[in-house]
């Protein structure tokens, strides 16, 4: 029963046990592709250039159907994100307009957007969104990476995973075939094709590259504080490790004479 007495051993078993997500019961149809992202791992940081390109893909392609209601333009210049220069964010925001408040005659006022404004919504209501998409609702993308198991790998796989060949035993009607989507039949048409966007930095816009960049961008969007979290974690864990060694020595010393 020596093992039973050893808490540290039990802690490790529990960490491993708990980390194997209890919810992993549901899987997608296919195993997700893992292209490898720079933000993975305890010291991971976002690739800023990829985030910038990812924003371009989102704003030029996805934003016509998907909103991102948790994000404001100002987030784009925040540390730990794409870090667009403030001036540029002002310019990006001013390209959109919003009705906000009333003039002296009680008529709604339209103005161009500011960095403090949220990303524009593609549709006025959920109903309108469904109406425009054959009854399927394009979900808000601000949290999509956290809302799916293994979110960013899933997203990457989904976006580049559309296939022309539909398995013979499947009848998908108007839907598109994508083996990464649970069930295989998805209401979103393939959104990305070669050169769907023309990257400002000249990177060739392959489907793979765009999928990768937008997955990067949406991971940041789901948790803009990730870099801060890992940075603080390193300091806290470092402190605790030193502390735990000192505490261990204190305990051994104290109990040395207790028999």
């Amino acid at each position: 029963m020596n093992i039973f007495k050893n808490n540290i051993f039990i802690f490790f078993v529990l960490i491993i046990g708990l980390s194997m997500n209890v919810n992993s019961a549901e899987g997608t149809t296919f195993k997700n592709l893992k292209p490898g992202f720079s933000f993975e791992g305890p010291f991971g940081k976002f690739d800023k250039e990829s985030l910038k390109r990812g924003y371009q893909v989102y704003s030029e392609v996805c934003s016509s159907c998907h909103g991102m209601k948790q994000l404001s333009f100002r987030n784009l210049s925040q540390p730990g994100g794409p870090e667009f220069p403030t001036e540029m964010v002002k310019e990006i925001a001013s390209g959109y307009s919003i009705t906000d408040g009333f003039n002296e005659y009680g008529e709604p006022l339209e103005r161009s957007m500011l960095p403090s404004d949220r990303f524009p919504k593609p549709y006025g209501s959920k109903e309108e969104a469904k109406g425009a998409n054959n009854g399927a609702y394009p979900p808000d993308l601000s949290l999509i990476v956290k809302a799916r198991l293994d979110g960013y790998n899933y997203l990457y796989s989904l976006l580049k995973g559309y296939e022309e060949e539909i398995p013979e035993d499947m009848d998908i009607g108007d839907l598109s075939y994508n083996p990464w989507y649970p069930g295989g039949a998805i209401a979103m048409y393939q959104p990305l094709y070669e050169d769907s966007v023309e990257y400002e930095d000249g990177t060739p816009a392959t489907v793979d590259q765009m999928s990768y960049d937008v997955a990067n961008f949406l991971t940041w969007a789901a948790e803009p504080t990730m870099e801060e979290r890992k940075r603080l974690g390193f300091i806290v864990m470092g402190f605790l490790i030193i502390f735990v060694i000192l505490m261990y020595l204190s305990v051994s010393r104290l109990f040395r004479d207790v028999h």
Partner: protein
Amino acid sequence: MNHDYQYTPKNGFSKWLDKRLPLMRFADENLLSFPTPKNLNYFYTFGFILTMCLVTQIITGIVLAMHYVPNTSLAFDSIEHIMRDVNYGWLIRYMHSNGASMFFLAVFIHMFRGLYYGSYKEPREIIWILGVVIFLLMIITGFMGYVLPWGQMSFWGATVITNLVATIPVIGEPVLTLLLGGYSVDNPTLNRFFSLHYLLPFVIFGVVILHIWALHVTGNNNPTGIEVKDSKDTISFHPYYTVKDLFSYVVFLLMFCYFIFYNPNILGHPDNYIEADPMLTPAHIVPEWYLLPFYAILRAVPDKLMGVLLMFGSIIVLFFLPWLDTMKVKSARYRPLYKIFFLLFVIFCLLLGYLGAKPPEGIYLLLSRVSTIYYFAFFLVIMPILSRIEKPLPMPIGISNPAINNNSDSSGGVSGSPSYAMDSK
């Protein structure tokens, strides 16, 4: 128990205070010089860890409540506001949500410890019973807290679990309406859950005080299960156990921080990052991991009411432990048969947790049934029978006297006298 030690106020002020409000005396007797068995192992540090968990939940919870909005159309976004815009809001929120998991992890270890060393036996019945009360309150608090972020699992979990109340004959329906503040989970439900979720931790705090008070009347049990005989068996709480508890807590914190900083969402369900939608049922509705064993018991039986009764029964039965296990020898260390059945019990509990996340069909359902039967049989059949037939191993005379007590029989440990070297530290 207090031997010959006496608190003596040292300076003018403490003498003055001692005559009016003996606060320092109380602290000294209960926190500093409190005589504690010298052979407590690391399983005995979880009480302190649990206290720290409760304090952490309360402090982070109060800060969250400053920014959280308990309204169905704003709750989800207010959590995201905390995560994105509030300074260190992400930290507070991850501490609170992972803190709940750590709290339950610690309480499970704490309870299994009690089961293994027979800590619920005379004279510690009240300590154990208060512990079960705390556990029940924790479950209710955790369940209500999980509803607050108003994600898909919040909403559907709340719907499934509250609907269980309706299976109770006669009073079920009206109680359900009262609980929900209507006929389905909606804004009134969220409001009352928030109110209760804020209240219950303070109730828990009160019960914790009683729990520790009762502990300080009887003193700690210890891994030998042999009662303390004299001051040779004990050491003062401070510095020995303050330091040992703190060490253990820092190890615990390391694990806690791993989750907060490096894997903060692994213990939650991805669906809870989707805002609640009453028109869209998720593919699988699963509760938080710490409720999975109970969920498995609930679904192990085909009859709904029966399932509900068994689920609650699985906790209620714990109240009766002191009278189900009447064996005088406390610690499993000297009970070879009990030790085996205890280990099986732990395995079946873990299995129930695993099964709670699986659909109740085929092999999973069968295993849930077997585990549920074992769960109850352990308390209701195995314990009473073992109390009668088990022959304990020879026991040491006392905590600081390892010589074997030759006339130890099944009354061993109670009449014996001091004992045994430290078995672990």
